[in-house]
């Protein structure tokens, strides 16, 4: 066995610390071994119920292992290469990484409460858990397990089922930290919360953070969740986010992904909606080596609304896979999915939308749409919208198109004197605009418009200094990482 021959400068953990390194390509056995060796650290904050969940999840993972291409839901996304690397695994927060100015590039003019995560660990200047005057609690999940065990136990691992999903089982068994947000009944968050998960490490890293977002009855929250990377090292992120929307609550959710080409991101988001809850969810994928978004929406009360929008702009050998499962278990709910993708060079995109309308879910409205533009002969799109309906009084429809840029429209624009490059840009941007226009926060919409224009012109790439390439970082936020406070 040979260790990689990369430059080992920086603050990388001791190479001899075998317990923190996956020894060979990632395997089920290797992960089981890591768990055993680091049991004490993984479970240090566990209450009894959480410890039990971990045990069950570990058994499930032992049974299921990692997904492979023989599984129907993974046949278009191959993890072999991602799993074939050697990664560092940090069972303690990583110290010594230059954190100064790392979050300087949040959305300009957007006044948000920022929660920072570095390599999956919550970081803060001095407080691991912020308790706002209005009762909102946000911060580290690890700290919430200690301070608010009753809330955490009530919701953790209750929505993201792990019995049939190896990666969710693995995350559930290993999860140590992540973001915890609790909005009490009748409280409306006055400003958006921005979760920024940055990956910055000196070598390839494997991380599994776990996020828990709870919205009480009649509450309201805007949440901007960013996954970014800062350097070109590889990473494998297996992130699970559980969201609970109690009766009549409203969540405006944004998932912004801008990662380097050596990254693998498996982002599982499970959202449970109680009666008349309303969810707007936006998946905006700008860059990433391999991104898999597993999104599940469970209507557990009547009259819920879920709008799920997706936009992905991929090039090189990037791969994006959006799996959206909507469970209409109760009557009168509305789900609306619009996913659009622009695939350039050798990139590939997958959309699998599955809407299940159960027998009792009468008066369901469900719509699914996936449209792709392929800019080259080598870009690929695989699109499968799928409706499974057992109720008889429903309105459901779906559509899928994949094609080239409209040559008639291109000619029309050029005939008016617009150069070919500008005309292509205008059309691509117009294609994306349908999804962008759904962004409810004006400053964020402007910023995303700007990012998309840069992305389409090939100017937005991950960068050592600044992932978002903001022109005016007006709200520089500094985090000094104090490990003792994590």
């Amino acid at each position, binding site marked *: 066995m040979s260790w990689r021959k990369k430059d080992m400068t920086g603050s990388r953990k001791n190479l001899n610390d075998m317990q923190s390194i996956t020894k060979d390509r990632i395997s089920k056995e290797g992960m089981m071994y890591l768990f055993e060796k680091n049991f004490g650290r993984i479970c240090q904050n566990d209450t009894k119920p959480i410890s039990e969940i971990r045990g069950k999840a570990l058994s499930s993972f032992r049974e299921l292992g990692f997904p492979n291409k023989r599984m129907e839901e993974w046949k278009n996304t191959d993890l072999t290469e991602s799993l074939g690397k050697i990664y560092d695994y940090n069972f303690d927060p990583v110290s010594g990484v230059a954190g100064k100015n790392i979050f300087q590039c949040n959305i300009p003019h957007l006044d948000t409460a920022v929660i920072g995560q570095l390599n999956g660990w919550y970081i803060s200047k001095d407080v691991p858990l912020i308790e706002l005057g209005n009762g909102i609690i946000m911060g580290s999940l690890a700290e919430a397990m200690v301070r608010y065990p009753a809330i955490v136990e009530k919701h953790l691992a209750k929505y993201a089922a792990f019995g049939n999903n190896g990666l969710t089982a693995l995350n559930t068994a290993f999860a140590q930290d992540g973001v915890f947000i609790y909005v009490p009944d009748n409280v409306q968050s006055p400003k958006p919360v921005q979760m920024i998960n940055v990956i910055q490490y000196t070598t390839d890293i494997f991380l599994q953070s776990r996020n828990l977002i709870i919205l009480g009855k009649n509450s309201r929250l805007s949440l901007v969740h960013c996954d970014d990377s800062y350097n070109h090292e590889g990473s494998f992120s297996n992130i699970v986010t559980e969201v609970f929307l109690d009766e009549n609550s409203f969540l405006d959710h944004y998932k912004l992904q801008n990662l380097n080409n050596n990254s693998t991101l498996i982002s599982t988001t499970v959202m449970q909606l109680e009666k008349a809850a309303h969810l707007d969810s936006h998946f905006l994928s700008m860059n990433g080596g391999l991104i898999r978004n597993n999104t599940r929406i469970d209507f557990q009360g009547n009259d819920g609304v879920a709008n799920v929008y997706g936009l992905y702009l991929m090039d090189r050998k990037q791969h994006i896979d959006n799996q959206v499962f909507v469970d209409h278990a109760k009557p009168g709910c509305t789900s609306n999915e619009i996913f659009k993708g622009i695939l350039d060079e050798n990139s590939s995109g997958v959309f699998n939308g599955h809407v299940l309308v159960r027998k009792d879910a009468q008066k369901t409205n469900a719509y699914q749409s996936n449209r792709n533009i392929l800019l080259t002969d080598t870009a690929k799109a695989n699109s499968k919208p799928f409706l499974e309906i057992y109720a008889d009084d429903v309105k459901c429809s779906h559509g899928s198109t994949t094609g080239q840029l409209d040559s008639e429209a291109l*000619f029309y624009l*050029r*005939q008016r*004197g617009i150069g*070919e490059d500008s005309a292509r840009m205008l059309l691509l*941007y*117009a294609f994306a605009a349908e999804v962008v226009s759904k962004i409810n926060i004006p400053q964020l919409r402007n910023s995303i418009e700007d990012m998309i224009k840069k992305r389409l012109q090939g100017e937005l790439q991950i960068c050592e200094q600044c992932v978002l390439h903001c022109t005016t970082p007006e709200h520089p936020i500094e985090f000094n990482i104090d490990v003792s406070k994590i």
Partner: protein
Amino acid sequence: MLLSIKNLHASINGKEILKGINLEVNEGEVHAIMGPNGTGKSTLASVIAGREVFDVTEGEIKYKGKNLFKLSVEERSREGIFLGFQYPVEIPGVSITNFMRTAVNEQRKYRGLDPLPAGEFLKMMEEKKKLVEIQSNLTNRSVNEGFSGGEKKKNEIFQMAILQPTLAILDETDSGLDIDALRIVANGVNTLRTKENAFVVITHYQRLLDYIVPDYVHVLFEGKIVKSGFKELAIELEEKGYDWIKKEFE
């Protein structure tokens, strides 16, 4: 001479459509090209505008003395060639305002001019909207998306008014128009006529020529101009129908 077409042959997918067109257009002139369906009228317009699906197999086109085939689609436009589309394309997500601002500024850049200040651009838009009597809010909508047939054609004339071309080719701009829309379209064209520019009006019916009076009328049949004359020729065609031409030619 503004436009000179000599022995133009063009084909699509190996099928020859234009079989030796000759046409000369000077500044200040209005030419009408008439003829039955499927004889190559739209193909001629497309070839002049530079649509790439057509292969020019023989002949030449000179525009302002230059070889037109050496210019790209956008360069032809920036040199003053405008095509009014028979079927204007819908472009969801691009507003007319944004479209025209981009077009005007790219054209200005080509002429070495700075972008038009936003205020001046909007003022010009308002003026031109009045000319073609289009609703004020139409320009905030996506280009042609959900427009009625009449709105689409008025939008073509509106764009022409903004870009002020030297040579405008209007491809069946009258088709599908009611009498009011036809009058508005024609009025737009007549207002824009000067001694410096020229129009080639392609039409199937003589009706449009009651409103836009041509200097010359040409009949295109089976890929060739088989008859040329003055405005009286259009009236004769209306009376006798195209069968008369067909018989004479065959």
